[in-house]
């Protein structure tokens, strides 16, 4: 998160300052990629499409950092849905093979122990959750959005989002305990 300087950075980026835009990009891109790796097998492509749309609408954006992130992740979610529909229409590509080939694999205990729970291993572990739980966790933790924003993005009530998030964390805690990482 950029924090208090976000307003200045955004204003400079909206005025055409490329360095300010790079600051926004570097702040958001890692979380964006991690979120997309959980919800789509074409994370890099969808991230590129997302940034194209962001730079298109950047000058018209008004709001604080949380609103900016909510806007950006909403775009990413829509582009991921578009990519999924496009992938489903491609009859020549065997869907099962392509999706399983790109899907992040659940790490085993040894991987987690060796990596010391890196971001990559954490993403892989969250990808083992049910899709709605994984997405809520990523939006809450990676995007840094509050329950209300996540509820708007995923189209659920705040209460449902909160329950889903809690279930996800409990399941993750169980994974970690069974994997022996917690010892």
């Amino acid at each position: 998160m950029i924090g208090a300087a976000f307003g200045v950075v955004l204003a400079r980026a909206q005025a055409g300052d490329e360095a300010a835009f790079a600051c926004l990009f570097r702040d958001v891109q890692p979380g964006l990629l991690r979120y997309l790796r959980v919800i789509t097998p074409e994370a890099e492509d969808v991230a590129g499409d997302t940034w194209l749309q962001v730079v298109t609408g950047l000058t018209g954006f008004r709001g604080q950092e949380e609103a900016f992130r909510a806007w950006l992740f909403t775009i990413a979610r829509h582009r991921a849905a578009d990519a999924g529909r496009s992938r489903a229409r491609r009859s020549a590509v065997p869907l099962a093979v392509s999706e399983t080939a790109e899907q992040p694999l659940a790490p085993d205990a040894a991987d987690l122990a060796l990596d010391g729970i890196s971001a990559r291993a954490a993403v892989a572990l969250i990808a083992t959750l049910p899709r709605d739980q994984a997405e809520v966790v990523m939006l809450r933790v990676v995007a840094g959005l509050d329950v209300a924003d996540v509820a708007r993005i995923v189209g659920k009530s705040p209460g449902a989002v909160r329950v889903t998030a809690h279930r996800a964390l409990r399941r993750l805690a169980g994974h970690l305990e069974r994997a022996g990482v917690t010892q």
Partner: protein
Amino acid sequence: MSVPDASHSEMPGIPTPSRPGGEHDEPLLDMIFDGRAIPPDAPQEMHDLERMLAALAGPAEPGELAGEAAARAAFELASPAGISPAASRPAAHQVNRRPASHRAPRRRPARRRAGLATALCAAAAVLVSTAAAYAGVLPEPIQRMAHVTVGAPAPRHHGTSTRSGSGSRPDTRHGHGPAGSPAPRPGRSADAAWSPGHARVAPARHEPPWIRPRSAPTCGPGPRVYHGPPVTAPGWTPSDLQQIWSRCSEDLGKLRR
């Protein structure tokens, strides 16, 4: 569970679940989500969960910023500062385009090709028209006009010789003909008579100005006096000119159709 496992004093900072039957770890989970530090005596799996989520929101790892160059290029195209010559265009139309450094060389040759094609078409039309005029196959009014302007043969039905040498060619090089410079020249008020409208109100001159003998030019190798084609100088009146003009217009309209 209607009673908390521990008293509030034993777990400071952790709100007691108020909802009967509520999960006792919900406050801990909310603290983890909000990025607040959980109590040290919280279950170990919660600490590990906190550590894992912290790693999830951690800084960029190698390869995660690989798309920065492409994003900056897109930003350069879409931002007002990056596209100052076409800043008035909507950014949405520019994001998906190639960078300006790639786009410009593709457009200029296209314009040049279009201009060259237009020039070639115009040149071909002039050549074909001139050839047709010299072949004497144009409609009579147009042929007559070509005769007096570019020296093409006169219309055949007059029964004249089609070529009368240099003497039958109006001398346009000295500004005597309508195909000369259209700019007004001092002392040549008869230029206005080329327009049909002016021809109607022209003074009583029974010959068009470009076939009237003129005095010698003030410069040049010597006097070049044009006396007009001997057969096709019928002493046109302004009404003749108007008639020729209207017939030319009609024939041109037929040709266009």
